[in-house]
């Protein structure tokens, strides 16, 4: 426990009473953690199983971002901790990536020493000490760069669901797959009502659930559509929105309706494929509305947060090592200057803004696991 002294770590999660004599460290049991605890997968590229591939044939990236964002939406204001399952056999255990995958969403990873690191540290092994020192530096870095910058996620798509019961799988997978598409989303948890401000700034809402929502939510959705928004919803909800008239537009998997100044996309066939649902939401919203885009993305995933004055683009590299290619970030937001820091190079670097042919792009310096661009 002496290892924790002088580090950003201020809480130990233990299974029993914990060791005596700790000062400056809060000791809690798992059951009494002062946070919502999310059980996640080890982030990174999933081990390839024979004969399996993602829907696009691309490597399958495991990230806990959507689980964290869902937990935050369910219990606003509460801290979220991520506890990772035991890695699968053969899976690479990259603890810095685990920390980054929690931190970029404003959560904290409950550091898991594992048998190897715990034994190494107990034995005073130099390699283990080196690993621990890197984790300590990373924790300090993320406290500085993610804690302060945990602004509201910027998005043009809201994903609304109870995220429970029969609707849980589809809605959660949509979040998961939207992130993989680099499609920014806002998690909207269904209740009895839906505040108008929760839809502010959105251009589209995907309501995943089978049943029509409660009257208060339906009224908010109707107002959103009448004001010019796009709603993707199932048949029961479309039927409940009176006044919607078919437009006759051709779309492979949707029947389009007009209501006020907005549009509704109802299903031609019942939704059962979250991949296609995330794809359709992205296409109907149109990629021209993407907040940011990465060129030569490899296994990078971006996340955009903003408070209206300041926009932060965080990028996690799930390959866990530097990209072989130059990475370019296309930005739709107007800004004056762009500053970049990464886990490996925490000193801020001002980026040269490339403005050509109507595009605003930033060439990102090489980084291994985590980089963040602040647009001021």
């Amino acid at each position, binding site marked *: 426990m002496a290892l924790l002294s002088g580090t950003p770590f201020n809480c130990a999660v233990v299974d029993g009473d914990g060791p005596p004599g700790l000062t400056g460290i809060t000791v809690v049991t798992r059951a009494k953690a002062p946070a919502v605890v999310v059980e996640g997968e080890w982030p990174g590229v999933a081990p390839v199983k024979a004969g399996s591939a993602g829907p*696009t*044939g691309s490597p399958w990236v495991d990230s806990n971002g959507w689980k964290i964002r869902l937990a935050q939406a369910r219990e606003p204001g509460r801290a979220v901790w991520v506890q990772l399952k035991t890695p699968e056999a053969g899976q690479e255990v990259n603890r810095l990536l685990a920390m980054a995958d929690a931190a970029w969403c404003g959560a904290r990873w409950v550091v898991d020493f594992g048998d190897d690191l715990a034994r190494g540290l107990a034995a005073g092994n130099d390699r283990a000490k080196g690993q621990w020192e890197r984790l300590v530096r990373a924790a300090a870095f993320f406290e500085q760069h993610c804690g302060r910058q945990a602004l509201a996620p910027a998005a043009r798509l809201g994903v609304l669901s109870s995220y429970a019961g029969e609707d849980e799988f589809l809605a959660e997978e949509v979040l998961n797959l939207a992130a993989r598409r680099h499609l920014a989303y806002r998690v909207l948890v269904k209740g009895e009502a839906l505040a108008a401000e929760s839809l502010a700034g959105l251009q589209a809402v995907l309501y995943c659930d089978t049943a029509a929502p409660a009257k208060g939510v339906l009224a908010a959705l109707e107002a959103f559509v009448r004001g010019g928004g796009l709603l993707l919803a199932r048949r029961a909800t479309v039927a409940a929105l009176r006044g919607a008239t078919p437009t006759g537009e051709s779309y492979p998997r949707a029947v389009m309706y007009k209501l006020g100044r907005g549009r509704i996309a109802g299903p031609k066939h019942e939704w059962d494929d979250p991949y296609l649902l995330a794809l359709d939401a992205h*296409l109907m919203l149109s*990629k*021209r509305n993407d907040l940011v885009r990465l*060129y030569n993305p490899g296994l990078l995933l971006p996340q955009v947060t903003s408070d209206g004055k300041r926009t932060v683009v965080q990028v996690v590299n799930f390959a866990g090592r530097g990209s072989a290619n*130059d990475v*370019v970030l296309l930005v739709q937001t107007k800004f004056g200057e762009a500053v970049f820091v990464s886990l490996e190079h925490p000193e801020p670097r001002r980026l040269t803004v490339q403005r050509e042919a109507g595009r605003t792009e930033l060439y990102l310096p090489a980084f291994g696991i985590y980089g963040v661009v602040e647009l001021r």
Partner: protein
Amino acid sequence: MACLSRRSALQLVGGGVVAGRAALQAAATATVAVARCRTYGAELAPTMAKMFDQLGGLAGMVKGKTVAIKVNMTGGATWRLGTKPAELTHYTHPATVGVLIDQLGRAGARRVRVLESAFQTGEPLEEFMYESGWDVAALGTAAGRVEFENTNNLGKGSKYVRMAVPGGGLLFPSYELNHSYHDCDFLISLAKLKEHVTAGITLSMKNMFGITPCTIYGDGSPKDEPSEDPKGGRGAVFHNGERQPAKIAAAELDAKSPRDAGYRVVRAVVDLCAARPVDLAIVDGIETMAGGEGPWCGPGMRHVAPGVLVAGRNCVSTDAVGAAIMGFDPITGRGRPPFEGCDSTLELGEARGLGTRDLKKIEVVGTSIREVLYLFRRTAGA
């Protein structure tokens, strides 16, 4: 000879000059326009207009017609060579697309369709273009009626169209294609001036390889009926012949033919150029890349700026001139640059009667090959 030195290349392309313009015109079976064009800026539109005039004028070709433009957007929408936007290396540049659409509209084209089989996706072509960073709205308003279609699946059509190869084909007797290649009166192959790791060069002929839908010819297409969600590239069917296309399509002519990509891909290209002839071939060599057809081709790929446009009514002859501009002898065949590992699309195309690759029989108008020669492979003698 690893490839042509500058001196050799000049000797090769100088033949036409020595023969004299009158003699060449008498012998010519094709006309190809070549123009110096350094940028995609203001000089582009007048340069292209002049080239089309040199070929007889666009109005005579397209007035009242539905015109399809097959562009080259090979590879993923977000893949780049270094930081360069794809249109400066391996994609047709949207400026050439926009100028062409505008001039087709002015020439009286009834409708213009921009076509490409977008890599590993069946999403609308406009979305693929947005993802690449293109201004689709500008293209869509460049003429009166402009449409876009991703031909990697059915697109906006209700069924695929079987297009037979006259004379029976070299690899397949016919190809199942998106309706847009059939429902057009005039087809333009708007290609890029590039080398190709499998086919040696990729110009207006090889650009046609991309008209095949991966829902049928893709690595992940079902065995029987095509899926509307294209998966994978065309490696298994066309490159190495590991599998046949979905059963909706005709099977390969000879299942015992070589499973060698250098044999197969070029034959498919020639088949496709015969099944759906190119009415106008345009090759964008203003800025492009050398070493291969895309950033995935490994080390040694580099951005280059030959500053040239090539256009002609015959795809074999246009590509022959393009190859000569790149410093390659269009008469050469397998085993010689750039066809070290493959047969020549130019040779096969000529043998199939699609056009001549013999520079002595091609009238080059505008700028001479000599003036725009740009060696894609530098040699000691260059």
